[in-house]
């Protein structure tokens, strides 16, 4: 059973509008969450992260929101640009709880297309 789920395989957004990518998780021991962006034929590129002690982290056009009670996080991109078109992966780890070395558990990804 998947511990990290991205239920939308794809998302299409107009340039300048907001892109919202969603991610759900089932393991309550996860305490660190990351978003990666991946272009074709390249490795995932780190975008933004959030610790479970926070509910929001912002970096420029990118904001990640964490709702621990719902086991849900989302990535907001405002304003969206054509260069943001890529596959976005949500990942989670047990960073501070015992037993894990912080291996990342990934969702299947959401392909974002930003149309000019």
């Amino acid at each position, binding site marked *: 059973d998947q511990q*990290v789920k991205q239920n939308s395989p794809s998302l299409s957004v107009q340039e300048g509008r907001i892109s919202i990518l969603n991610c759900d998780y089932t393991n309550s021991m996860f305490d*660190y969450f*990351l978003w*990666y962006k991946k272009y074709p*034929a*390249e*490795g*995932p*590129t*780190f975008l933004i*992260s959030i610790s479970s002690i926070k509910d929001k982290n912002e970096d420029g056009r990118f904001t990640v929101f964490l709702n621990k009670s719902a086991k849900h996080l989302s990535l907001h991109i405002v304003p969206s640009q054509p260069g943001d078109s890529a596959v976005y*992966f949500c*990942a989670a*780890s047990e*960073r*501070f709880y015992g037993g894990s*070395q*912080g*291996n*990342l*558990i*990934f*969702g*299947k*990804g959401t392909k974002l297309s930003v149309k000019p």
Partner: protein
Amino acid sequence: GAGVSQTPSNKVTEKGKYVELRCDPISGHTALYWYRQSLGQGPEFLIYFQGTGAADDSGLPNDRFFAVRPEGSVSTLKIQRTERGDSAVYLCASSLNRRGLGTETQYFGPGTRLLVL
């Protein structure tokens, strides 16, 4: 500075053959991870090194897979008797992972695309 590098970028082999995939992490990063990504899936953890030792190899699918990191820097993932199901992109990542601070952000290489015919 230089990021994580992986060689070869592409590898085509025949079923039953042996392959080696190389990863050169970011200088100074003590933690190194191997992941495998199949089509339409997210990366899946294979093995984690802290320094020279494999701290967690629970993601290796079977004993045909083995990885080493003899000097705590470059790592090699070795696959024996390859099968068609081993075809995937093999990703390497590294992080600082200073002890006591938990795992830090992992930075990925471009991957090696392995095709087993």
